[in-house]
């Protein structure tokens, strides 16, 4: 269990100027500062991959709300990651249309290929596997979402190919820059 520290970092020391500017924009379109909480969590997550305890403390302080309240919000919503995740988070749809169209076969193939269960991250830190409720791709089931991209009409083979493609894209980039 994470233990929340009582001494918060100063938000402007901890959050970057870009993050602060994006959070300020969200604050500006809402009536109260705390109304921007969810968007602020998403802003920091976009930049850092997940929301650490320090991030949470800094955001709460910046929005002038209690840490406990923001933690209550952060843990309610499944697209906010309160634990470190891999570079790519696989959200596989486990709802009814995907179920009827054989998603369990795709799921087992992904688990076997990456050697992880739901909620786990691969040893190389690249992939985290999570389930997701209906992704709204029911006519193209089974589907999954990785990052901002949706993958449709999945088979065990095409799902693994998509994962390998992402792995290759990372290796290519790393190969170019020393």
């Amino acid at each position: 269990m994470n233990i929340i520290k009582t001494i918060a970092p100063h938000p402007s020391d901890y959050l970057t100027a870009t993050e602060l500017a994006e959070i300020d924009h969200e604050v500006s379109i809402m009536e109260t500062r705390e109304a921007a909480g969810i968007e602020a969590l998403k802003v920091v997550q976009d930049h850092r991959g997940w929301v650490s305890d320090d991030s949470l403390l800094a955001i709460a302080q910046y929005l002038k709300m209690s840490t406990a309240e923001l933690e209550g919000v952060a843990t309610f919503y499944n697209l906010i990651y309160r634990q470190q995740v891999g570079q790519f988070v696989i959200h596989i749809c486990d709802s009814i249309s995907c179920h009827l169209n054989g998603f369990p076969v795709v799921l087992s193939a992904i688990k076997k290929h990456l050697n992880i269960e739901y909620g786990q991250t691969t040893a190389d830190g690249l992939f985290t596997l999570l389930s997701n409720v209906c992704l709204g791709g029911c006519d193209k089931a089974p589907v999954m979402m990785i990052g901002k991209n949706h993958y449709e009409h999945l088979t065990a083979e095409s799902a693994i190919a998509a994962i390998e493609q992402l792995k290759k894209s990372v290796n290519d980039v790393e190969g170019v820059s020393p």
Partner: protein
Amino acid sequence: MKAMTHPLTHLVNLSAPLNLEQYSELGGYQGAKTALVEHSPNEVLEIVKASNLKGRGGAGFPTGMKWSFVPNFEANDPRVQDNKYLVCNADEMEPGTFKDRLLLEGVPHQLIEAMIIAAYTIGANKAYIFLRGEYHLAAKRIQKAIDQAYQANWLGTDIQHTGFHLELYLHTSAGRYICGEETALINALEGKRANPRAKPPFPQVAGLFGKPTIVNNVETLCNLPHILKNGVNWFKEVSPNSDAGTKIYGACGRVKNPGLWELPMGATIGQVLNDHAGGMSDGLKLKGLLPGGASTDFLMPEHLDVPMDYDSIAKAGSRLGTGGLIVLDDQNCPVAMVLNLLQFFAQESCGWCTPCRDGTPWAVEILTRIENGQGSIEDIDALLNLCDFMWIGKTHCALAPGAVEPLKSALKYFNDDFMQHIEQGCCPYHRGH
């Protein structure tokens, strides 16, 4: 002409949605112009009431009546200065439902035009689109369309020199099905946990930040430009029955051609399933279906002639819901299907009230037992009891009753399948597993 028979979808372009200029050239923003220039807000309200437009998000509540509950304060009332809000519910998360995605990704300007009309009518100067977090492409396209609308003075101050002022913002959510419930959505928009609120007060009186608020579904709103442009009579005549307008119907499951079709309201289940979705996939037979998303009662092959309008589907024992068929074939296990649905509801329960928080996982436990061949006849009674404990009036919101609908109807229609699981000690559809 497609514009008259397929008003909502005739301009859909999923590969490259129309920009503001292209959309306007093809008749876009004419409805908003008609509303703002030719009518007072009260006149628009009367037009929408007369059109008999009903909510397309699942509940089917008359839109004009919903709007009429927003208070009109007298000029000397201090509350006349208060904000009113319009919120578009684009939190499409009902399993088996993907119709709003088509409108959001395919013709984003139509929604913005619709929101201008709705906001003008209820006197809102601030509006939000509450979009589910997973619809990344829709978010990108909607934001682009909003930016174009500001540049062209269809949003912002003194819209098209009519004196009407509207700020429109996109809010992307961070998940959870319960956000689709309108008071939970309002809490989420206020940055809180998305627990539904107690009603009354209703959002029309005290909603977002405690101010009068209207929450409408994407598809509902998208009807407005066409009602304003083509008139009430046209809207009523599009449909062969008393539920006016068109409906975007869908079909998923193992059918030949799953997808979405905009048809006159009241197309039959058989027309959607056989004429448009091409019938069942090869070698499969129709076992049953949910007519409007996960939280509707099963209907059976004998219901194929039932028109998909609010009253007819209700008479057949289900709900029109979102109008998206989820089709069960004869080689998928109905118990496993209901188990999957209940797992969804148990996971997505917000945990606020006991019948839902405890009842939905309990149903999952029992269904898992039955599906694994370890169920007993008492388990059926326990499930029926749960259906009673989780029904309307005993829960804080409609989530648990929504879970009861497929469960209770499955117990009725697929009783033989449940009994076979219990008697044979295994799932007859997965023998040997």
